[in-house]
């Protein structure tokens, strides 16, 4: 009965969103009374509450092991601890779509209830919010219902969650990511409303700026968590793989970063108005595009959900309609927007604009990397794969140029032309320091460093030194310090620096060892001492005992392989020895025909710094959004 109640509540929510949408649509052009606005708002609120209740009931079903619900039976199991029972809801397509829509409705609900109902944009905001929610609820109910039942005979136990998803990171990585993706629905609906209303007198930036910053923080955290999970649980041995699904998360992130910068320029100096509107729309459209790529299964990726072209086509249709409506509004209305000022060349906003262009360029490059394999597959019938070399070659120069513009923007002023000599004299010391440090760091490495790595290293150090220098000078002169910007950009510089160092210094060894065999080289000694088998409740463990002697210190490792009984799936549990600068990472591979085992030993430098710098960037944004209360 409870599954039906949850299902019914979801249908009712869709009905109410439809009603709320129609109320505004049918009264368009009439002089709208307060009561009509109230009516549509009340419907909207009720719909959201229904949706939240439906989801809470669904969580209850998962916790109570109701395996008559097909989705729960397929993805959960009565032996799982309670938080994995809950997180199994978002371990596959239907349930994660449900969560995605829930978050979408909650963001928009919070937003419309904080808006002034007297505002002449209010009805448009309700209209677009209800429209987007309606589309996705219909998609959920018609093509991907998580409420389907197996009746009359329900299975006694569920099919279990995929073992690699039995991890604390699964509990938080998708929710954070979704909160980020759909958070950009707030600026999206507001911009649509602004364009639809068509009177461009009032300022709109301040209303959505804070929301955008929160969404940006969630998106960044979500991506960061995903990267961390891939490293320590999935045994991939790295932080970023240019997997199509990572790329479709990176595109909205880049657009969102451009958007948060340009909205800042727009409030500060009244420039880039229509450009900012365009970016705001683009972020959300790219998020939808990401959902389409992941859920249609047209691109092979680790994250792909079940391949169902019908679903893909429906999502494409929804994304298409939403983007045509929004970009249509933009292209026909934005010509009326008059920027209060033009960009002064050499001013702070001019460098921000240039970096905006660079970010769009990088989005386009990533987009090309994602679709190029499809182009060759369907138009030339050859399969190609686009990997790190493509992205590294494209990103390194873009980041270098971006670092230079960041430097110039730090030392220039809003709406004022720069004075070349003055700016350069301020940058002189940071440039010298960065060149010197880059030289020092790269000479620590015994082999040659590639140009791309050098560029990355220099850019990172350059950004760090500019901001450190600026902080130092401003505090000495008792001038205003923009902590939010400084912390975020120091985070970004540190990110580039860590990535560059990681790529320069890290190395790996692939070994083939028998039990009691040793590997000895100049730098290290590795011995494979023991192999033991252990039976657990739902899996068998094969544990290797490895001892490593490095710099006269002996470290023991016990990497594992786990074989799960129910699905026959095999996973690896990596063993990591972490120090401040470096992780030693051992992964056990396959057993070969002669009885020996393969091992992958990696020395990853500064890898934890990467996630730390992501946290710094988020911290900077939080400082900014707190200041805006």
């Amino acid at each position, binding site marked *: 009965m409870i599954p039906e109640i949850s299902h019914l509540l979801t249908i009712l929510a869709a009905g109410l969103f439809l009603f709320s949408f129609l109320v505004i649509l049918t009264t368009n052009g009439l002089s709208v009374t307060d009561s009509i606005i109230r009516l549509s708002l009340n419907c909207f609120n009720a719909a959201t509450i229904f949706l939240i209740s439906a989801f809470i009931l669904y969580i209850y079903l998962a916790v109570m092991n109701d395996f008559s619900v097909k989705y729960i039976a397929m993805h959960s199991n009565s032996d799982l601890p309670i938080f994995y029972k809950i997180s199994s809801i978002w371990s596959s397509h239907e349930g994660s779509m449900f969560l995605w829509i829930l978050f979408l409705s909650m963001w928009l609900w919070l937003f419309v209830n904080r808006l002034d109902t007297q505002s002449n944009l209010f009805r448009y905001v309700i209209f677009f919010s209800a429209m987007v929610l309606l589309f996705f609820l219909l998609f959920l109910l018609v093509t991907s219902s998580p409420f389907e039942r197996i009746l009359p005979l329900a299975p006694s136990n569920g099919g279990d969650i995929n073992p690699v998803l039995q991890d604390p990171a699964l509990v938080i990585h998708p929710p954070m990511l979704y909160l980020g993706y759909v958070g950009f629905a707030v600026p999206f609906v507001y911009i649509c409303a602004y364009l639809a209303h068509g009177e461009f007198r009032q300022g709109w930036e301040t209303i959505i700026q804070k929301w955008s910053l929160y969404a940006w923080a969630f998106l960044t955290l979500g991506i960061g968590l995903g990267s961390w999970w891939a490293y320590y649980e999935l045994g991939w041995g790295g932080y970023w793989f240019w997997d199509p699904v990572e790329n479709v998360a990176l595109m909205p992130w880049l657009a969102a970063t451009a958007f948060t910068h340009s909205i800042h320029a727009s409030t500060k100096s009244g420039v880039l108005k229509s450009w900012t509107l365009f970016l705001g729309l683009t972020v959300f459209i790219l998020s939808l595009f990401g959902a389409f790529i992941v859920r249609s299964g047209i691109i092979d990726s680790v994250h792909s959900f079940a391949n169902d072209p019908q679903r893909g*086509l429906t999502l*494409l249709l929804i994304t*298409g309609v939403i983007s045509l409506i929004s*970009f249509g509004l*933009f292209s026909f209305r934005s010509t009326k927007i008059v920027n209060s000022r033009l960009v002064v060349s050499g001013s702070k906003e001019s460098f921000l604009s240039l970096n905006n262009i660079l970010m769009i360029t990088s989005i386009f490059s990533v987009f090309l990397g994602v679709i190029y394999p499809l182009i060759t597959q369907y138009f030339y019938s050859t399969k190609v794969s686009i990997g790190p070399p493509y992205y590294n070659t494209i990103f390194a120069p873009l980041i270098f140029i971006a670092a230079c513009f960041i430097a110039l923007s730090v030392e220039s002023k809003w709406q004022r032309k720069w004075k070349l000599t003055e700016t350069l004299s301020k940058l002189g010391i940071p440039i010298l320091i960065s060149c010197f440090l880059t030289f020092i760091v790269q000479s620590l490495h015994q082999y040659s460093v590639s140009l791309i790595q050098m560029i990355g290293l220099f850019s990172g150090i350059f950004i760090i030194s500019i901001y450190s220098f600026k902080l130092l000078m401003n505090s000495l002169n008792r001038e205003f310090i923009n902590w939010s910007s400084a912390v975020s950009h120091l985070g970004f510089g540190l990110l580039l620096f860590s990535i560059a160092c990681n790529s320069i210094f890290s190395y790996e060894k692939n070994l083939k060892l028998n039990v009691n065999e040793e590997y000895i080289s100049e730098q290290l000694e590795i011995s494979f001492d023991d192999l033991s088998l252990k039976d657990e409740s739902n899996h068998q463990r094969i544990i290797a005992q490895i001892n490593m002697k490095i710099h006269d210190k002996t470290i023991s490792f016990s990497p594992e392989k786990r074989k799960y009984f129910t699905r*026959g799936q095999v996973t690896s549990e990596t063993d990591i020895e972490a120090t401040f600068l470096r992780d030693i990472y051992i992964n056990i591979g396959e057993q070969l025909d002669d009885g020996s085992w393969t091992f992958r030993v990696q020395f990853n430098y500064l890898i934890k710094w990467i996630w730390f710098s992501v946290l710094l960037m988020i911290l900077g944004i939080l400082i900014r959004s707190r200041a805006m209360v």
Partner: protein
Amino acid sequence: MKSKIRYIFLLVPISIIVFFAYVISESQNEASQPLNLELPEFQLQTLDDKTLSEEDISTGTYLINVWASWCITCRVEHPFLINLKDKGVPIIGLNYKDNKDDAINWLKDFKSPYEISLHDFYGTFALDLGVTGAPETYLLKDGIIVRRHIGELNIEKWRQDFAEFF
């Protein structure tokens, strides 16, 4: 000039949508392309302790359905297979990486849609066949595999790819 530029904002999304619509329709065609593979050699015990090899099913048309008692989608697919059996479609089960007792009980509890069911505990025959998981369905015509479907077999898929053979 400015009024012309604005159409770009529409043209770009439209061309992207058209591109992906094309890709999806193409990938759908690809999925249902006919196969022409010889059935790999095998010799396996059935769940009722007989022995079966590829020669025993080298003539005639059969469905080979990969299933397991741990597989929930197989439970979902089960009523449709019973339906096919009632229409006279011969289905050979390939019980995949499953405990024999569990499998026999499963067939007792839910009624067996299979003529016979092979017991492939180690998944060796399944490996030769190219099985990726359960459920999966193969269509065997005179010793040649002509169709393959990954995932739950349902009425749409049946009409589209399999029905013509029966």
